[in-house]
């Protein structure tokens, strides 16, 4: 029998009080695609980072192709033929593609020769694996999909035959994701071994040969993909039954709550990010906005949320909203019944060094209930926050932990708890489940639908087409700062939306990945 490409035995790793990996064992056979799933904070990224020498395990052994191997740093991992594409890319933004690829793998002390050689090899690799990318483009000018290619090429350039991908599709359009999986299939046929971390069960079912499930730092199961089902995997992951589909009643839209007319936004460097957006959201309705990241959806949320100025006309419940003046701040918006779950929970949604109860209290803190003469009544604020933390099932339910000590999914629940408990007339919500595990997704979706059923208006922005399709009552596609068109979820599908997201209007024709890319590049879409 052939030796496993990778075998880990008894790997443990603690970050301070958090035991991220507990006595983990896993075997991955060569020439297979091995999936790893698990809730947020289960320890998937940590385990793979140990294998890649980014973190050092406290205990445990690593065997590569049957050989016991010490991996104290990434250099050792690279030497052992391991390459990794991190969840958050490790690229130097103001370097070119070529410079990023040779960094650390230069031949000789002078750049001229190494860059020359690398250029040739890169061209061969690009052609062999259909990973086309301009070697002289700066990373900061590339979209995330392209950046990911650079990361994969970086690994291949170092002759990796074991490739680890940590949540690679979180940021990709459906077409890009399909392309990625075709490349992975090709690599597998060549005999390379691939480890794929993802939250999307569909990707696991379609591409992997075996799957391992992690829970709270432990490896709880490893199964053959052909012998399992999404339902079973979800249960293994969460430890209970999970609803994989959103259950919701048909919408009963009422009066128009939000009306946006010809909204324009110019960013700090003078680029027009929104080029005249008009839309309406009614009470008891969820309008989903989908688009490739960087096409203006973030700016739309930010203007409406009072974090940015813009021009045009916006009314909420018939009252016009100040877009540029002194009353254009987030606080005034909140008083008008607008709640905002920002796209980036860590930089905009929370203060990472503050306690959970403080974070859940923000924006309420000037409520008379929490005033005690000149002082704030912290006890009252904390008791209320504690109740919300319980109600929204934040884990651990300890209001004295700082926000940074929660996993991504639970951080998101903190923000959602704060905003939904305001009982707003209009909820602006961006990427509510980005990087969040299926258990938490189910819960967050239920809460958003419940708000809608209570007759509130919801504007949802997400790059996840699944999410848009299953939550929205109406869908608007945004491309290059404009609304490309509106669809009803029952009358469209991922393919059509994917093409519209790339700015293609004749969606009934066939379009190659190349066309789509060219179109996206033309608009500068997806960049930043």
């Amino acid at each position: 029998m052939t030796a496993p490409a990778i075998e880990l035995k008894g790997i443990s790793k603690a970050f301070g009080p958090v035991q991220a990996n507990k006595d983990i064992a896993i075997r991955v056979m060569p020439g297979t695609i091995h999936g790893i799933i698990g809730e947020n904070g289960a320890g998937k990224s940590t385990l793979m980072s140990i294998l890649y020498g980014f973190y050092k395990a406290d205990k445990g052994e690593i065997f590569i192709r049957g050989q016991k191997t010490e991996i104290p740093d990434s250099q050792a991992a690279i030497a052992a033929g391991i390459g990794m594409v991190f969840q958050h890319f490790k690229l130097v933004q103001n370097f070119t593609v070529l410079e990023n690829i040779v960094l650390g793998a230069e031949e000789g002390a002078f750049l001229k020769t190494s860059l020359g050689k690398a250029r040739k090899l890169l061209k061969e690799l690009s052609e062999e694996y259909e990973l086309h990318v301009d070697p002289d483009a700066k990373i900061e000018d590339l979209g995330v999909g392209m950046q990911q290619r650079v990361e994969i090429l970086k690994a291949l350039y170092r002759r990796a035959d074991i490739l680890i991908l940590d949540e690679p599709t979180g940021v990709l359009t459906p077409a890009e994701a399909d392309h990625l999986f075709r490349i992975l299939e090709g690599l597998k046929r060549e005999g390379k071994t691939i480890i794929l971390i993802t939250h999307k069960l569909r990707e696991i079912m379609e591409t992997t040969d075996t799957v391992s499930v992690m829970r709270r730092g432990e490896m709880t199961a490893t199964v053959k993909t052909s012998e399992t089902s999404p339902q079973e995997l979800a249960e293994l992951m969460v430890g209970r039954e999970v609803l994989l589909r959103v259950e919701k009643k048909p919408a009963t839209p009422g009066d128009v709550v939000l009306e946006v007319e010809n909204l324009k936004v110019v960013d700090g460097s003078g680029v027009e990010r929104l080029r005249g957006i008009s839309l309406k959201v009614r009470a008891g309705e969820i309008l989903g906005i989908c688009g490739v990241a960087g096409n203006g959806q973030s700016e739309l949320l930010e203007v409406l949320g009072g974090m940015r100025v813009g021009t045009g006309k916006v009314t909420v419940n018939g009252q016009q909203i100040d877009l540029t003046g002194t009353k254009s701040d987030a606080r005034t918006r909140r008083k008008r019944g607008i709640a905002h779950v920002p796209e980036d929970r860590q930089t905009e949604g929370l203060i990472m060094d503050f306690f959970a109860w403080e974070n859940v209290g923000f924006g309420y803190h000037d409520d008379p209930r929490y005033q005690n003469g000149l002082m704030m009544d912290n006890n009252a604020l904390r008791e209320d926050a504690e109740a919300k933390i319980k109600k929204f099932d934040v884990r651990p339910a300890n209001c004295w932990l700082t926000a940074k000590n929660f996993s991504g999914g639970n951080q998101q629940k903190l923000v959602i708890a704060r905003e939904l408990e305001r009982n707003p007339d209009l909820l602006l919500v961006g990427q509510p489940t980005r990087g969040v595990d299926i258990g938490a997704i189910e819960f967050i979706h239920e809460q958003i639908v419940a708000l809608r059923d209570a007759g509130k208006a919801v504007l949802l922005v997400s790059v996840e087409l699944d999410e848009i399709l299953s939550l929205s009552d109406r869908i608007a596609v945004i491309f290059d700062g404009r609304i490309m068109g509106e669809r009803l979820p029952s009358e469209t599908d991922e393919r059509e939306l994917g093409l519209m997201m790339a700015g293609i209007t004749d969606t009934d024709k066939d379009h190659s990945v190349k066309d789509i890319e060219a179109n996206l590049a033309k608009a500068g879409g997806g960049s930043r």
Partner: protein
Amino acid sequence: MNYLDLVQILDSTIRLSTPLLFACLAGLFSERSGVFDIGLEGKILISAFFSAAVAALTGSVWLGLGAGIAASVVFALIHGLASITFRGDQLISGVAINFLAAGMTVLIAQDWFAQGGRTPQLSGSARFSSIDLPFADALRDVPLLGPLYAEALSGHTILVYAGLLAVPLTWYVLFRTRFGLRLRAVGENPGAVDTAGVSVVRLRYAAVLICGVLCGMAGSYLATGLAASFTQNMSAGRGFIALAALIFAKWRPWYALGACLLFGLLQAISNRYSSIDLVVIEIPNAFVLALPYILTVVILAGFVGKATPPRAGGEPYVKER
């Protein structure tokens, strides 16, 4: 003001720019690697003292230079230890180094020489002598360019020429070598360097070391080339002006040369003229003396345009929260 005046101003511009240039390039290496260094000033000062002291004691300016560089490197390593190994606050460590140097130099000077915190006057082989560039004498009489070459460019000490040479050298190292690529990368995204299999710590120490050597040369030139002894606090804010020049230069070597020459020119003008008569109004001396510092503030306040510092600058590289 006639042409010869102008040539003489240029001559002193070059001399006054040299310590700034060394310090600016020192800061460039350090900050490009992601280690911010407001301790340039302290390193210049400590090096000025030890160069002057050792030159005075041994009579050899070269030993003085060596001692100055060694002292500056020790201080650079302290900064490295605090900010790279112990991941402390780079600002605080830099401030501490400035205080340490200011106090230590005077204290030791008083103990060794008992001349009120200064070193004895240096002369002869204890100072750098000036070098005449080839044909300087022959070309002196050529109109216009002759005096410029013979008076302004020729006749400086070896450190001045070393400083000027350091500019293309820095450019080459930074943009044409493997070391330079990695150095720039580690200041932008140490995670990328780490995961590419290169040691972040070693790179940053290398940069900090180079910074120490260059600051050492700045201080040494100050005490043994520009002046002829160490005097209390003789660096006079040059370390900070060099930092301003670095920002003005957007962390690029050739721009750094330009920025340092500009600051040197201002100093040369204020040294030469006690007041400037602009026909309509007379600018008083105090103002002229303050000009380089005023310009520093003005430039930093807004004339730089958009200067993006190295993205990971000032942040220790911490993997585990």
